[in-house]
């Protein structure tokens, strides 16, 4: 089965990404280590740019509305995703358990619907 890991990062982690210096370096190093460790189970993955750059489109009261900013206004920001190829959700949980965003952010695991 394929399971998508939605990476919800804290604003703190997000700002660590862009800046130069040891904090940013340490942050990316953790991600690099993590990706290497789970690499054999990953079929896809991407990092999203800052949610400031998001544009949201929706219909409200029958009218189309285009807004700057993300869809959900929450403390955590969707920072990226990974798709794992695993046997069970337990296995996906185990892979997710050492993700570097965990001490501050949160991870949502969602099985993908298999299209035949």
């Amino acid at each position, binding site marked *: 089965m394929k399971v998508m890991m939605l990476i919800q990062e804290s604003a703190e982690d997000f700002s660590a990404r862009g800046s130069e210096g040891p904090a940013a370096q*340490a942050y990316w190093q953790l991600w690099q*280590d993590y990706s*290497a460790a789970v690499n054999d189970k990953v079929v896809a993955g991407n990092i999203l740019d800052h949610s400031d750059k998001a544009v949201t489109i929706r219909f409200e009261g029958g009218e189309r509305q285009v807004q700057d900013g993300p869809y959900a206004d929450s403390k955590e920001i969707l920072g990226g995703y990974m798709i794992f190829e695993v046997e069970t959700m337990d296995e996906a*949980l185990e892979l997710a*358990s050492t993700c570097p965003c965990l001490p501050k952010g949160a991870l949502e695991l969602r099985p993908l619907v298999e299209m035949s």
Partner: protein
Amino acid sequence: MTAEGTSLVVERVARESYGRLVAWLAAHCGDLALAEDAMGDALSAALSTWPEQGVPSDPQAWLLTAARRRVIDRVRRQQTRDHGMDRLRQQAEEIQTSSLGGGLADRRLELLFVCAHPEIDAQIRTPLMLQTVLGLSAQRIGNAFLLSPTTLGQRLVRAKRRIQELGLSMELPAPKELQERLTFVLEAVYAAFGTHWDHQQQGTLDREALWLASLLATHLPQSAEAKGLYALILFCSARQEARRTSAGDFVPLHQQDTALWNHEQIATAEATVRQAAALRQPGPFQLEAAIQSVHAHRHVSGQTNHRAILTLYRGLARMAPSLGAHIGMAASFQQLGRASEDLEVLDQLPKERVVRHQPYWAVRAHLLRDAGQEELAQAAFGQAIALCSDPAVQRWLTTVRG
């Protein structure tokens, strides 16, 4: 008493009595799930009536009476729906007539053996014990074992149904079978005491595991391995305070301030190891306890006898080959400065089993560095850091990697 004060009393009574009462009820009605439901109801009844009526003089007896009533009600309802259920009727009678005089027979040990029955899925044995004997919530067990509460709940229900289907009785098995089953019981208790979750301050299962191990050691005085496990857990938990600095940083064993160890616990552990040895039934838990005893000796001698540790790990790897034993062996080779032998030990381990095993990568990284293979060492440190779920250990490994 305030509602808050009462709920504290209920919590304390629940902690002390839960497993005892569930085990007793299950032994008499033969249905573990029903026994647990009944106890749950009794506890919530206590929470709602004790603040008004006061805490009864014998809270445990009160809870048992309430839970018994609940079991009887349920069995009766079942009977009217389904005539001729002789077994259930017997159970109802049994539970009604069984006397409480002279205190409550402790059936927790029997319950532990039922939870670790060979027909019960090995993965669920520990969670089942924690829930039925200690009353831990599925949420908390799920946090520790990395399982979603729903998945865990389903597996627990399935396990209890299996116990029902197999008609497993709450009795200690015959001596020969007891010996076989004891291994499973001890392993399941040890699994509750893992480094896996020792950093989750809010949810350590260590205390519970220590308690279960002491229960086993006390009630099975002829089992050397039960004592071995109890001693092992005592040694490890005695170092709790020394494992972190006040700032929350990780301190590896060889750098720990031995003054911070709990010397009372260590003394109990040493005495337990000696009692176990006197029974002349060597076993893996006793060897592991012996290894911890060598480490504990550093408090007295100021140094660690790595040669003794290596010998013990060798024995362990022969008696019960496990990843832990081989990695321990490799680490002792490193301490003795025999870097090529230790890498050999690690290379022989099956790749698919070590690929996500954090201690393997941590030890391997140190060995590679000692062997002068810094580039490979860096990669191994990276793997160890990435597989580590404890932020403090992660910080420590990052510093060591440099």
